[in-house]
């Protein structure tokens, strides 16, 4: 406990927490929205309806503002393991390093190899090739999320390795890659990116309908978005519950922290089945100073039985216990948001069923639209609080039960760590502020409804707008290059 709380260790954690938290602001949009852009493009190619094209090009602008920030902060992430957690990187290298290597080769580069074509290739490559590029960006960014969750999931539930000569050497690749936490953690994260992107669409659409600008166009987008959300939002709650049970099984200290669950058994010897709605935890005393409890709920949630035993904090040595405040409240914020977003999806589809999902009706009673604009921000907060729960819940371990965080920290002075932190606070806030400012600018400008549709004048284009058009771009010859 004393070593864990020394200033260099805490600062190194803060250094990493800051760059990670500011990185996760960008990547979910890239991952989730690239699929939505692909669907919009396909809708345009299949139906020939220009509206889908206009929407695709509009959201693509927001996508690319977001993209640069995501890549730049992602390069930082890749190097930060070695910089801030050198001994950790060395020890986990045989598995974790390999996985990060897989990620750069099969995902990071794959995405970079098609993003230029997707954004700047309009009119320079055929429509089919363009749609293919968008698809590749979507697939590669999802692959990237998968590898990162393999690596992080393994830190939560490190299977398939033995510790030998100071290194975690892999004995079973299958078990290490498909570690128990990854199997549910990755779906949870991937669905989160799709949910976030869908709410991004819905919030921007709601804003335009509120402002009565291109209101019909954005109502047209709102309908399929809400339909997707009625599937995605409850699915995410279901997967989240599964992940909670997985954590209860493989990472009991983390679950105990998330739920403020200090006592495995009640004083009378019966299992403590109570779930804390809210609490004032006191880790050093090993109990809650105050809590509102609901009996049996915790057992129902984690074991799906009425009286199942859920391991509490008292089962573990004091120096193996994580902080409780952050996981407990961050988890509650995330869950609340999850249910609120489900409610928004229900409300929207209910309006649609009653035929009230039209621009006129929505504006007459603007509460739904206003809450939908607000809901655009909530998934970001849910992603943050979810990751804080996950990462702080794993403490004091960096590799759960095998390597303590302080054992993985690099050789750094407090001055160097502070310099890093202050510098990254300045730079990441600049990125954040800049991206926010340009998001609002692009949104205020609205979709471009007048420029000619790319490839529309091509004589060999399919009459419905679909098919592969020849690029209008004049091909230079090699002679001219030389």
């Amino acid at each position, binding site marked *: 406990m004393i070593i864990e709380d020394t200033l260099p260790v805490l600062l190194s954690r803060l250094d990493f927490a800051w760059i990670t938290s500011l990185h996760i602001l960008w990547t979910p949009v890239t991952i989730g929205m690239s699929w939505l852009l692909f669907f919009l493009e396909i809708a345009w190619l299949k139906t020939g309806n220009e509206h889908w094209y206009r929407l695709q090009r509009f959201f693509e602008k927001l996508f690319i503002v977001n993209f640069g920030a995501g890549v730049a902060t992602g390069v930082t992430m890749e190097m930060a393991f070695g910089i801030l957690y050198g001994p950790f990187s060395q020890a986990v290298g045989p598995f974790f390093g390999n996985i990060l290597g897989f990620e750069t080769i099969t995902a990071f580069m794959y995405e970079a190899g098609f993003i230029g074509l997707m954004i700047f290739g309009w009119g320079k490559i055929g429509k089919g090739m363009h749609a293919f590029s968008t698809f590749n960006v979507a697939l590669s960014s999802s692959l990237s999320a998968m590898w990162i969750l393999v690596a992080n999931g393994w830190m939560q539930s490190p299977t398939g390795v033995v510790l030998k000569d*100071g290194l975690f050497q892999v004995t079973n690749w299958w078990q290490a890659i498909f570690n128990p936490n990854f199997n549910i953690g990755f779906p949870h994260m991937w669905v989160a990116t799709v949910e976030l992107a869908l709410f991004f669409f819905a919030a921007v659409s709601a804003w335009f309908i509120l402002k009565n600008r291109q209101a019909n166009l954005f109502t047209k987008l709102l309908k399929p978005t809400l339909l997707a959300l009625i599937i995605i939002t409850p699915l995410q709650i279901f997967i989240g519950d599964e992940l909670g049970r997985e954590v209860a099984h493989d990472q009991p200290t983390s679950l105990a922290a998330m739920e403020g669950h200090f006592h495995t058994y009640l004083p009378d010897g019966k299992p403590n089945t109570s779930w804390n709605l809210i609490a004032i935890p006191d880790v050093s005393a090993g109990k809650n100073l105050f809590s509102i409890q609901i009996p049996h709920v915790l057992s129902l949630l984690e074991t799906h039985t009425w009286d199942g035993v859920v391991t509490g904090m008292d089962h573990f040595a004091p120096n193996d216990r994580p902080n409780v405040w952050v996981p407990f409240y961050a988890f509650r914020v995330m869950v609340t948001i999850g249910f609120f977003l489900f409610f928004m999806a229900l409300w929207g589809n209910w309006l649609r069923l009653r035929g009230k999902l039209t621009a006129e009706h929505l504006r007459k009673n603007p509460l739904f639209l206003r809450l939908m604009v607000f809901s655009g921000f909530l998934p970001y907060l849910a992603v943050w609080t979810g990751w804080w729960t996950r990462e702080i819940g794993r403490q004091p371990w960096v590799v759960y039960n095998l390597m303590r965080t302080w054992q993985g920290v690099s050789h750094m002075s407090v001055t160097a760590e502070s310099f890093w932190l202050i510098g990254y606070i300045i730079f990441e806030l600049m990125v954040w502020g800049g991206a926010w400012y340009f998001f609002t600018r692009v949104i205020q400008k609205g979709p471009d409804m007048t420029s000619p549709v790319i490839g529309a004048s091509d004589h060999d284009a399919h009459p419905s707008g679909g098919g592969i058009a020849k690029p209008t771009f004049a091909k230079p010859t090699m002679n001219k290059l030389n």
Partner: protein
Amino acid sequence: MHEIFRIHSTLSTFWWILLGVFFVIYIVLDGADLGAGVFSLLLNNENDRAAVMSSMAGTWDANETWLVVAGGVIFGAFPLVYGSTFNYLMIPLMFALWGIISRAVAFEFHVHAQSSRKFWGFMFGLGSLVAALFAGIALGATLLGFQMNTGNAQGIQVANDPFVNTVPHFSGNALSFLSAFSIWTGIGALIAGGLAGTLYLCARFEQDDPIYLKAHKSATLFSFLALAAVVITLIWSYAIMPDAAQWTGSGWFGWLILLIAILISAYKMMSNHAAHRDFAALLWCGAIVLFMWGGMWATNFPYIIPQTWTISQGGNPANDLAILTLFMTGFVPVMITYNVYQIWVFRKRITHLAGYESH
């Protein structure tokens, strides 16, 4: 046991060569982009700067990502090197990353900016300069090696710690990277970047365009500067680096051939440049990078970090290297193919007017 060691050293050497290839690709491609960014600071018209940015709009991200691939390969194949060298290079990498961040967001923001257009244009140039300078410093510092120690990196002693006394960690301080040589290699990287960047701009702009004319003149100047920088770096390296003694050892003939190949490439680059065969000049510049990096890699053998980590000491256990080799090698030609396609799509020469459009 003996066989296993042989497999281990074969696989780690294979990844060491591949790593060298990735670095060469990165330096050739992103060196040009960064150099063009540095050059853009010399342009006083914001639209001209925008034209420079739009010349690489579709390719800069992929070019930069070769660095990430190189980093991923170091982590994947040589994690012991990764965990200690990056710790050693904390300060220069931090500045280089800030440069990369500034430059990346400037690309996306500049198009949409009105009142802040000048600021983002400047951040693009400054970010390129800082990234190139500190990448060069990091390279020079790496060539000099660093101190390592076993024991806990934070200096905390605990009984029965399974991680200490086996793997050596970096044990210097945050400023260990700083030396006259590493500062010089930083300046050298700026000069080399300036040359590659201006040659690249010559190949990307119409030959009667004002930006072309300016870049063409600068490239000539940079090529003389670069030649001088190469000579200084070689002499300096020979004087201070133990491994460089082999240049005049029994294998001097091979090194002489390499030097001649570099000089011929430099001559071809300059003559093609003078004759306005811009693409050929750019390719010869790439050949110089290939020969010089290859020479450096060969000089360091069997070290991956001179006097610090040998290739096989720094490599992963044989089993992990085998997995990396089996699953990732096939992707290398695939990566190169789609990158070539993307660059091919954006090969057309542009004019300074590109700065007026939203790219």
